[in-house]
């Protein structure tokens, strides 16, 4: 009963917020949702890694950067593929790259304290972005694709609709991963490893291989996300950094291992950022909203758990 009541309460709060935004500035809703889609799409692979391999990958955003460069140079310049087509080979190459990173580095730090893993991936992040800097300089590259300016007009307001692709991909990723983890043999094994690696090893699951596959899948997904990112954004060596932090925050807010939760949290953050952005003269404060909401969520949850 208690669960139900709180769900109704939340639904009411959300509905009220939506109605208020619609009355005030309907486009804020559109942009908030789109923003949320991007955040979630980038964060979900990190949630997967954290939930199962129990590693906070500080090179997460940098992997997206690598994928975006890959999509830009190999797929677009050499083969002339659209990013939506290029994402397939890029994802495969990235998955292989992920496997390599796992075997060469992550694997050897799994038994160490989590701090070591943190610094390890931090080192990887520096190396990736600096190699990109060395190879391509810090100048930015940007594709020109006419479809990213796709527009819709309702009444006298026009807004971009392309970014809903992010939302679609985020939902697909979340649902797909959930199905994978709950329905497939591999996924169930991964879930078991994530919950209790020792126990999983005892029942005969190859824990190391499972970690490797999950990490590789996550990096492969970053190939998709990176290609997608390239459609609309300019790329440069430092492009990934801020997304590492955003994803880290989102994943922590959703709660470790909660992939679908990332969707809700992204939505909450995307909307509230868009709202603050929509108030003239206060756009600069929207950054605070992101972090304030995260802290508030974490604190409320911690106090509630204590009470329980």
């Amino acid at each position, binding site marked *: 009963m208690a669960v139900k009541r709180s769900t109704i309460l939340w639904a009411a709060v959300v509905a009220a917020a939506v109605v208020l935004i619609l009355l005030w500035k309907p*486009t804020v809703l559109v942009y908030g949702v789109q923003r949320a889609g991007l955040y979630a799409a980038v964060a979900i692979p990190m949630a997967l890694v954290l939930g199962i391999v129990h590693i906070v990958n500080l090179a997460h955003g940098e992997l997206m950067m690598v994928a975006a460069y890959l999509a830009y140079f190999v797929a677009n310049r050499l083969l002339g593929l659209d990013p939506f087509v290029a994402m397939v080979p890029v994802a495969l190459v990235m998955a292989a790259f992920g496997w390599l990173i796992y075997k060469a580095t992550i694997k050897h730090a799994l038994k160490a304290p989590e701090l070591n893993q943190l610094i390890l991936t931090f080192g990887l992040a520096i190396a990736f972005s600096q190699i990109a800097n060395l190879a391509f300089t810090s100048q930015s590259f940007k594709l*020109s694709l006419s479809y990213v300016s796709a527009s819709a007009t309702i009444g006298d307001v026009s807004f971009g609709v392309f970014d809903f692709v992010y939302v679609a991909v985020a939902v697909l990723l979340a649902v797909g991963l959930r199905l994978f983890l709950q329905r497939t043999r591999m996924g169930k094994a991964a879930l078991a490893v994530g919950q209790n690696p020792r126990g999983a090893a005892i029942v005969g699951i190859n824990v190391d291989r499972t970690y490797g596959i999950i990490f590789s899948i996550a990096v492969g997904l970053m190939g998709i996300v990176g290609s997608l990112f390239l459609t609309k954004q300019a790329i440069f060596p430092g492009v990934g950094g801020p997304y590492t932090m955003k994803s880290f925050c989102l994943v922590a807010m959703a709660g470790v291992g909660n992939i679908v939760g990332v969707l809700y949290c992204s939505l909450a953050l995307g909307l509230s950022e868009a709202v603050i952005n929509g108030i003239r003269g206060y756009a600069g404060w929207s950054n605070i909203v992101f972090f304030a909401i995260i802290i508030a969520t974490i604190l409320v949850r911690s106090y509630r758990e204590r009470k329980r």
Partner: protein
Amino acid sequence: MAISETSLKDVLLFTFDEINKAGGVLGKQLQLIIVDDEGKGDKGVAAIEKLATVDKVDVLIGGIASGVALAQVPTMKKYQIVTVATGAAASTTVEKALGPSPDSDWYFHLHPWDYNQGQSYADGWDAIQKKYPAIKINRIFLAYEEGAFGKSSFDASKAIFGTRYQFDGASFKSALQGGSDYSAVLEAAKEFKPDLFLWAGYAQDALPLLEQSKAMKFSPPVYLGAPPAWPADMSKSPLAENVMLYGMWAQSINDISAASKKFYDAYVKAVGTAPTSYFAALSYSAVYIVADGIKRAGGTDKAKLIAALEATKYASPLGETITFSPSNIIKHQGIRNQKILQWQNGRQEVIWPFEVQSKPIVYPFPAW
């Protein structure tokens, strides 16, 4: 911060090479020592200390980020090595820290200060409106990135345009800092209905801003950008057509300036691509100004070199002859003018100053 220090490095390398291959200065080869400041204040200070005391250099060239320059000023003041600065536009901080003559006479500031730029833009738009009666500008909107660069652009623009025009602005998070969405600032701009829409951000913002403007059907009569560099692919985008920009150098100046042509050819040969930022031409100029100064001073004696640099008359690739004269605080200010340019058929064409105009202005900016 936005500019690649590596591309700047390439410019310095090939310019030194060029001078040395032509016999050097006073029969001697110029020696280049590069230290990366990593865009950080403390690294920048250590770099100055090293160059001053270990390498004992005669001249310092470079510096783009105001933040680093700010950290370096006290140390530079300590050694008072002759410096030709190619960046650092923030007058309220950097110029103030340098202080007035004679304590800052060793400092030759090539790049315009923010108020120089602002004044230059004001002059430019006055002149353009006079020459083209069809162009009427009453309302100006500035979209600026929320960091130091954008905020100082806003402050300087407001001071100069705020009194004569209807002026408004709003900030956005640059893609350089992880921003991805310009909808709020564009909505505010659209509502304001500006005659001139200006944005002050980084190369990373250029095309996404245009794309989102198109999606939102926002097409002001003048769409103007003022980033320190443009993305490499800008010319390939159909959206770039007739976007206007502020800058100091463009390929089109090659048509009217032999110095520009020489710089451009050398750059393409050494780096492999066309320059994406006017800082390349600025750095190139700085090296030639120094070489020329040493030649006229007959060596690197500080007092003589400063005197020689004061008398600089360098026909630069920027399409203007560079001389030094006092600015608001310091004694040696080089360039004051920016140019107003416009993308036409994938090329940056100079619109103003009219003396170096390469193409007439296309107005208004076409609606999508």
